[in-house]
Structures are given as C-alpha cells and as structure tokens.
C-alpha cells in the first residue's frame, strides 16, 4: 500500500481560507432582513424566579420575547435532559437562560433584556461537592445530588495494604478551568421552505439537530444544522448553547435571527472542566513493587450533568495511572452543586488524576529510598500488563522508553548524583 498522506507534510484543507481571513465563523454571517437575539441570564445561583416582560415588550424594535412558555418541550442535555431551554420555576446556577429577546437591532435587544423585571426568591445553595453529598444538603434537582457512582474493584485492596511495607496517603484538589476558545459563541438561523436552518460553530452538529428537534417537537428532517468554521472548542462546544433559542426564534417569528455572545456571556454559557477532590492511598513492598491502591474521587459537575458520567468514569478508570497494581479499589462520584456546570474538556477526566497518582509515586519513592524514575520504570505498563479494569495491553506500550528519554533529556542521572 502506498501512503499518500501519512508521513507527508500536508497543508490543512481550510488553511488558505483561514490565513486570508475568508473563513466564515457564525458571527461573520449577514443576511438581508435579519434580526437580533439576546439572552437574559440568571444573576443568582439558586432561586425561584418570576419574570415580568411587559415593560420590555414595549421597547421600540422588540419583536418577541421568548420564555419557557414558548418552548414545546422545555428540556435538553447530552446524557440527561436536566437542562431547561429557559428556566420555568427555578434557576440552578448563575448564567442559566431565562429569556431570549428578538429585536430589530442588537441595541434594542440589549435594552429589552435590561428591562425584563426578574424577581428572585433565593434558596440556600450548595457550592462544595462534599457538602452536596450529605443527605441534608440543599437539592439542586428533585432527586439527590449524587448523580453517578463508579466502582472499580480488583483483587483485595484492604488485605493487600496490611502486607505493604510502605503506605502513603494524600488529598488532592484540582480547580475549575474554562476552555476560553478564542471565538465566542455565535449563530444565525433562518427558514428554508419549512425547514429551520441553524448555522453554528459546534462539535456535535448531528446531536444539536436532535436536541433542537426534540425541544421544538419537530421532525428531525425539518431541522438542518450547518457547522461553520469553528474557532476552537476543546470540549466546550459539546453542549447546546444558543442553537435551540435561535431555532425557536425562527419558528416563532419566521425571520432570520442572529446572536453573538460577548466574552463574558461565553464564560457564563458553556461548560467547565470538572474540579476534582481526590483521596489517594497507595502501598508498595520493600522491593519497590506497587501492591495496593485505593482512591475516592469526587467531581463537581455544577448544576447540570453534561458529560459528568463519562468524565468521572474515565477519572476512575485512569486512577492508577500507567502502573500495574494487583489490588485496586476506586470509587468516583459526580455531584450536582450550584456552581457553573462542568462537562467535556480536553482529556475528559483523565488529566485530573495524575495530580494525585504521580504525587503518590514521588512520596512512595522517597520513603523507599528509590529514585523516582527507577520506581516508575519498575511499575509502569509494558506489553502484556493488565490494567485495573482487566484489560491486557497487547500492542505498542512505549512508556518505558518515554520515561527513559525524559530522564536523559533532563540529565536525571547527573542531578541524582548531585543530590545524594
């Protein structure tokens, strides 16, 4: 077989359009007679809410103000339909969508958003996932706050710890992170016959189509999603933001509708990386062989599930790091709070756990008086290794070589001599 692309230096297919400024992102779309949409978002993290749109409706240029009453099926969400298109009774986090003003100009829409009277009746919120797991904690949704528990058991960790010569324990925390892709969310929607066309920058056009169709109660084939140029995403464009608002606005007004988020609104509208709290206990024998590991990982998914299940499962699956351990016990949890919702972000839960398992490795190496490189080489995955989930790694596992190359590049041997 002749390879034409692999191993060759290929210029990306959309490179020319991007380097000349001709690539079209949704904010670059302009059509005749288009009108503008602007979202009203919650300023409170947990409250019962009532809207009075009567004054806003009187503002010159306002065509229609959409609220929960206008949505045929007021739910969406990638795994659970726990997101409302517009909150009906209760807001669960700052930034929740309350209304969408459609007006002849962006300025009129902004003015009307400011003129909507919002009455908040605040409820006690919960912002710490540990607190949220307690039975008496305020409930973010109707059921309990723990929405997912992943259990991994291999061997008998409890027994194995008793046989370990050294055991280390630690608690680790990672913070919330925003993708901060450079192109803030924007979209344009219009009618093409009796089909509603939504142009947006998305990671998931086919799923957006499904979510729009379900919310609007329209047949799937009456919704068309066009993916424009996407100005970065990193997981942050896997959930719906303005797509349903725009489609509904077109359905109700019949006009082409455009919306462009500011940077601030972008931060309020899309997911974050799950902050995690990780308790780790790891043990080895005097020869430096890892014997047992126990981890409890709690992920704060904020007010909505988004991809929390996949993220916390992945965190649990990868909790050992790339090391072979015979006895493993992992419990990972996804927990609702009133924080901004967390979802997909590069690595999907696999990037938080190394903060824990690698620090554990360093602490064990120190106790065992083995240098940290050698200790890792003794325990790392090789061809034939069995992971904590029982997978036998049969193909290329070049980790050993990778660690050796890193050690060489950092002059590890020399530094070690100096240190001892």
């Amino acid at each position, binding site marked *: 077989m002749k390879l034409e692309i692999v191993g060759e*230096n290929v*210029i*990306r297919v*959309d*490179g*020319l*359009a*991007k*380097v*000349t*400024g*001709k*690539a*079209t*992102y949704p*904010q*670059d779309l*302009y059509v005749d007679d288009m009108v503008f949409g602007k979202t009203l978002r919650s300023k409170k993290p947990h409250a019962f809410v009532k809207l009075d749109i009567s004054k806003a409706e009187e503002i010159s240029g306002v065509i229609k103000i959409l609220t929960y009453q206008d949505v045929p099926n007021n739910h969406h969400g990638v795994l659970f339909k726990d997101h409302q298109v517009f909150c009906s009774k209760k807001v669960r986090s700052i930034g929740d969508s309350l209304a969408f003003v459609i007006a002849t100009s962006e300025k009129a829409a902004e003015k009307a958003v400011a003129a909507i009277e919002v009455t908040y009746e605040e409820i006690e919120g919960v912002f710490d996932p540990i607190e949220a797991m307690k039975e008496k904690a305020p409930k973010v949704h109707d059921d309990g706050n723990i929405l997912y528990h992943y259990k991994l058991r291999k061997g008998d960790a409890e027994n194995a710890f008793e046989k370990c010569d050294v055991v280390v324990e630690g608690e680790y925390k990672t913070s919330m992170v925003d*993708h*901060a*892709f*450079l*192109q*803030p969310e924007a979209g344009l929607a219009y009618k093409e016959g009796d089909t509603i066309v939504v142009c947006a920058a998305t990671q998931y056009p086919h799923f957006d189509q499904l979510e729009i169709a379900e919310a609007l109660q329209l047949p799937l084939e009456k919704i068309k999603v066009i993916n424009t*140029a*996407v*100005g*970065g*995403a*990193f997981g942050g464009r896997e959930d719906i933001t303005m797509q349903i608002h725009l489609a509904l606005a077109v359905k109700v007004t019949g006009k082409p509708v455009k919306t462009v988020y*500011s*940077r601030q609104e972008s931060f309020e509208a899309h997911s974050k990386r799950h902050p995690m709290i990780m308790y780790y206990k790891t043990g080895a024998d005097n020869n430096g062989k890892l014997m047992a590991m126990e981890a409890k990982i709690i992920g704060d998914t904020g007010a909505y599930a988004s991809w929390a299940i996949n993220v916390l499962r992945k965190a649990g699956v990868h909790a050992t790091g790339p090391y072979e351990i015979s006895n493993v016990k992992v419990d990972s949890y996804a927990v609702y709070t009133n924080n901004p919702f967390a979802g997909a972000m590069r690595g999907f839960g696999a990037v938080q756990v190394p903060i824990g398992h690698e620090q554990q490795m360093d602490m064990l190496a120190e106790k065992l008086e083995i240098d940290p490189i050698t200790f890792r080489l003794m325990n790392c995955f090789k061809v034939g290794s069995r992971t904590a989930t029982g997978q036998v790694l049969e193909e290329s596992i070049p980790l050993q070589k990778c660690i050796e190359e890193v050690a060489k590049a950092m002059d590890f041997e020399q530094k070690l001599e100096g240190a001892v």
Partner: protein
Amino acid sequence: MKRIQLKVNGKVYEVDIEEDMRLLDVLRDKLHLTGTKEGCGEGECGACTIIMDETTVNACMVMAFQGEGKEIITIEGVKGDHDLHPIQRAFLEEGAVQCGFCTPGMVLSAKALLDQNPSPTRKEIREGISGNLCRCTGYNQIVNAIEKASQYLRGEETKE
C-alpha cells in the same frame, strides 16, 4: 449619525456611522471586512488587530471616527506577488493555523513587526506577537512561521 471617510486597504469608503461605533464595528458590520475578528472586546486577545498608520492597534479599542485620515490595513489587504503574502505562506507551511480565529491578527502583528525589523530574533518575534492570544498552537509553530517568513522576505532560501 455622522458621515466619515475611511481609507482601508488602499480604498476610500464613505460610511455613515453612529457616534458610539468602534472601528471594529464599521469594518465588520458596514464594510463586511469580516476577517477582523472580535474575541474579547476589551483589547486583551488581539483577534481584531489591524495596522493603522504602520502601527498595530486593537480595532475594538479604537472609535470609528479615530480612523479618519489614517491608512488602515486589514487581513483582506495583505497580499503578495502570487496572491499569498510570504507571511501567509509560511503560516500554512509551518502548521501555524489551527482554528484560525487568531490568525488574521497574528498575520498583521507579524507584518507590522517584519516591516520594521526584517531580521527579528525569536525573542523579538515573541514580543511582536505578545498582544495576540492563541488557544490552539502553543505559539511555537507561529514563531517558526514568522522566522521563516522573515527569511522569505529577505530572499533567503529556507532549509526544508
């Protein structure tokens, strides 16, 4: 409403503006030169970088009327002998373009730098693009591209 004259990419435009319009709004909404991007609206990200009288500015931080009487260059005005400017060619060859939203601003910052300093060091290149954020590349490919473009512009062959 006010009528102003703007000279953009060598062409003179008569445009009606509202007094509170930014230069960025006029370029995008009035002239439909949408290669100039808005990433933050507060002069932090550099996606709206344009060249005004040989100096880079963030078009979101300049009022439209301030552009009167100035020579304005946007990405649409960056061209070379064979259509592509050597900077654009180098960006493509070095993989300096990913999502592309920072690219027009980066190219203009690179152009302003190389117009004034044809042989910048890598440190000077990094300083030259220090007002432009990129979330995809990690910047190394962009620095490589600008270095390569400086060689193209000096007429040197680059080692491939």
